[in-house]
């Protein structure tokens, strides 16, 4: 066999290898693998969202709904940190008692910082026709502030709670609708959560409104 034949044979083999590689579509398989890993992170954050909603349901007849939800968040957060994942976010939870027409109602609000960083400044702007704001400074990670707002409703309406916080020179604003209905007591929980894993960083935001039993919180 002539030497050139080996070169020709080599070219044929290289062509076959290239065709094989293209037909196997290995890059797509690798991309699919990454996508599945990302899907897993999405499933995990959905599980956390579901857990928060479970915590609300299981605490329905209790006064400490907010504390239980925050306890669950912290439970998951600690567990995930053990695997190198970071669960971070903020929860803003409000609860008001049975609303009577024309009477002043006090709403209790708590803000739980689990962003993993200190909130330099937090401003809560309560809009019930007129604006009323409260500011807090240096809200450390894994800490909660408690405050109250008041309103006097004569009919069913939606008020707004604007949450504005500054973290590492970045200002973030969240707008929470507080539905008020005469003759009801409600819990309104707003949650903004991010799960950082080696695969992806999915995040979710959701608000859960629960109408409470009138006899439990009057």
């Amino acid at each position, binding site marked *: 066999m002539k030497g050139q034949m080996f070169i020709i044979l080599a070219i044929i083999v290289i062509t076959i290898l290239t065709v094989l590689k293209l037909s196997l579509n290995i890059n797509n398989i690798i991309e699919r693998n990454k996508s599945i890993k990302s899907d897993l992170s999405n499933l995990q954050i959905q*599980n956390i969202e579901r857990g928060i909603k479970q915590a609300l349901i*299981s605490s329905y007849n209790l006064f400490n709904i907010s504390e239980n939800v925050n306890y669950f968040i912290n439970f998951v957060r600690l567990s995930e940190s053990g695997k190198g994942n970071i669960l971070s976010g903020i929860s803003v939870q409000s609860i008001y008692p049975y609303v009577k027409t024309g009477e002043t109602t006090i709403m209790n609000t708590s803000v739980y910082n689990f962003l993993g960083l200190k909130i330099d400044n937090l401003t809560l702007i309560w809009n019930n026709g007129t604006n009323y704001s409260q500011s807090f400074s240096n809200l450390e990670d894994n800490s909660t502030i408690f405050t109250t707002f008041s309103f006097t409703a004569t009919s069913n309406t939606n008020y707004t709670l604007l949450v504005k916080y500054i973290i590492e020179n970045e200002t973030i604003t969240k707008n929470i609708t507080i539905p008020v209905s005469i003759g009801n007591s409600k819990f309104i929980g707003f949650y903004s959560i991010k799960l950082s894993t080696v695969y992806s960083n999915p995040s979710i935001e959701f608000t859960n409104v629960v109408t409470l039993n009138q006899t439990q919180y009057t």
Partner: protein
Amino acid sequence: MIKMLKVFEVIIAIVSVSIIFILTYKSIDLSGFETINWKIVGFNALKAIDDNGFLAKYAIDNDTSNLNNFLKPLLPLGINHDIVICFDLSSCSKPNISSTKIITVDYYIAGNATLFAPRKIILYMWS
């Protein structure tokens, strides 16, 4: 001289094929491809039991036996599994499994309709 040239051409052919082979296939890393699928399957199996309300019920009762029975038909054949339920994070025990191909799936629950009881459920899968 002609013989040397022939040998040289053979060497070029072998080296070319080798280089192309290495360059084409060296970056393929499919490690964990199978086990990541296990994780998805395991997670969805736990979610299915949670949808039916049995996960919270048995996790609160620390009934791993019933949970393992529920999981069996939901997981692929040939894959072994075991459940660990953690009441608090310092009390998570580890089953004694001797396998190099093993994964874990973590799933959280906060309780059932009447009881707030956060639990971490760890599903071990191995072959």
